[in-house]
């Protein structure tokens, strides 16, 4: 039974696709178990753009412009608990790929001129600027995990992410191994909880939930080599979500 308590929630988006925000908003406008226990006090998309005091602030996206740092610090100062929601907010995600170039190069290539609008050279994850209390990883995070997090808050229980790997979840469903077929799959070292949704739909795991098995990385690289996957292909797929991880360092 859920205790009859209410919590206030704020939703903020930094630079990103805002998919994580839409997932969260969809849950809090349609989940019957949660709806009476949650009050949304801030969300630009839902018409409340102001930063307000809240029990929990969910922040998606990463810091890509200088003005977003101050915005994030204001959010932190008004939130009891701050949750980094989604890959971009935790490890930069696709936003981190800008670090392979300079901002001047990127702006020149895309716009043919310099914009001077405060683009940063790197994608800063939230914990490089403020204290983050919880992370919910994924691109986007699974619905069940956000619901679980909210239920834990309401019940006063500790929330923990699973330590299982995607590979474990994939093999336990009896799915064919994509790595053995010569695909670049990082499933053996990536955090599960997603129910191996990408391998299930025929796409290898490219690591949106981050690395959980650090000591397995060298074995994975060896395994990829054994299946005739070239280092260039491995690097190409690290350059989706895992640019800021040790896996990239190992592949240098």
């Amino acid at each position, binding site marked *: 039974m859920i205790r009859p308590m209410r919590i206030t929630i704020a939703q903020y988006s930094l630079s990103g*696709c805002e998919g994580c925000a839409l997932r969260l908003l969809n849950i809090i406008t349609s989940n019957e178990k949660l709806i009476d226990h949650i009050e949304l006090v801030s969300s630009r998309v839902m018409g409340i753009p102001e930063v307000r005091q809240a029990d929990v602030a969910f922040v998606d996206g990463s810091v890509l412009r200088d003005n977003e740092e101050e915005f994030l610090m204001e959010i932190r100062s008004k939130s009891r608990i701050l949750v980094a929601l989604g890959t971009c907010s935790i490890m930069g995600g696709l936003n981190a*790929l800008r670090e392979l170039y300079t901002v001047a190069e990127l702006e020149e290539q*895309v716009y043919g*001129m310099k914009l001077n609008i405060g683009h940063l050279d790197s994608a800063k994850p939230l914990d490089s600027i403020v204290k983050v209390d919880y992370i919910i990883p994924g691109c986007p995070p699974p619905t069940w995990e956000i619901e679980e997090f909210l239920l834990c808050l309401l019940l006063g229980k500790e929330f923990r992410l699973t330590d299982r790997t995607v590979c474990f979840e994939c093999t336990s469903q009896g799915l064919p191994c994509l790595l053995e077929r010569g695909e670049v799959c990082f499933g053996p070292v990536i955090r599960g909880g997603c129910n191996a949704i990408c391998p299930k*739909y025929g796409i290898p795991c490219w690591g949106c939930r981050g690395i959980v098995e650090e000591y397995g990385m060298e074995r994975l690289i060896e395994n990829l080599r054994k299946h005739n996957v070239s280092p260039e292909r491995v690097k*190409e797929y690290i350059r989706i979500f895992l640019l800021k991880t040790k896996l990239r360092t190992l592949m240098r």
Partner: protein
Amino acid sequence: MEERSFIPGIEGPMKVEVSIDPSSRRLVDLEIKPMESSRFFEVILLNREAKAVPYIASRICGICGYAHALCSAMAIEDAWRLEVPDSVRSLRELIAILSTVNSHLFHLVTLLFTWLGRSRPISLNFKRNLIELMKVKTHTIDKALNELCGDKLHPRNIVPGGFTYLPSMNRVMSTLEGVNRLNKLVYGLVEELLSFDLLREEDFKTHYVALKNETRYGLLEGCISIDSMIEIKVSNFKKYFIEQSISGSPAKLCLLYGKESYMVGALARLNVNSCQECEYRRWLHKLPSTNPYLIPIAQGVEVMKFLDIIQDLRRELRDEPRLVKPHHYPRRARGMSAIEAPRGLLYYEVEVISHKLTALDIITPTVQNLANMKDSLKYIVQRLLEGMKRAQIDEIRREAERLVQCYDPCIPCAVHVHET
């Protein structure tokens, strides 16, 4: 710190700055400012294997991710000269319709929360209906997208040539059985929206551009129609529609013939396709409609229409192979695709060398709508100034904000993809 008073109720941060001369009650200047950082997708997508392109392109936007995935896959197929079977085409059509219904309903619900929540308390009964609608949507539309593509936000299995995996179509059909329950709820939602007298009656003349398909109200196939008078092939898109940079802004503008603004999206689609037989067109009073405040209502009409089409497409679902590969990859080739994303026409142009993407140009619906939004805002603000004895800043701000919200702009799309 830069002021972050962005327009509420839209996807992505954006400001509108209006300068007025109070003595002459004339509009001096009006600027639209998307405030998001660029993510340079057009660079990070280059030199990648084609099969990963739709997966990454869908991350441009959290709500039109499906449109980016489908359009990028279709442009690569065009470059490869690869014909996909009818089973792939009809399933893609269903997916595009489901994601458009999802996007429109989310927009209508956020609009109601934004408008009504600010102007007066939302009645408990009405709130219950909204929650019921979101619940039914979750159990039908969202669930079907989750079943079909692994996730309702970012599809996993869409690749050039078809789908890497599909579940049993029986399972998909059963998730869509409850879709009928949405009709009544959406009907109530639109009637509610119309009853609040929030939508001004305006007559703003502009050009309307959308895909036109002779056989059905299509989202993925057809030629590009301008005002139902000129029809052009997708391959000629850039001869008519010219992109322009704006100094100091992460977004661009796209203009017809390089000089005139035009509208894309739900209202443009209904205007171009007439939809004489559609019983819900009465919500728009007349078609073609020249009132941009009626864009959300046009989205409501489309949802009602699409709920019927879903039932037709549901009957066509069969378990058939749905992935084809080219016999050989071209050494170097260009391909184009234009589809109707929820917010309007989306255009992809690619260059591939063998199975790798080497050049990319994306023109999103919001980039095409930005100039039109600016022109219609100027028109409305000037009309308000002329109609008032004194310039009431709050009313101008409220109406400008409301008009932008009607356009349903997508700032993450507008600032993240440009020609390279």
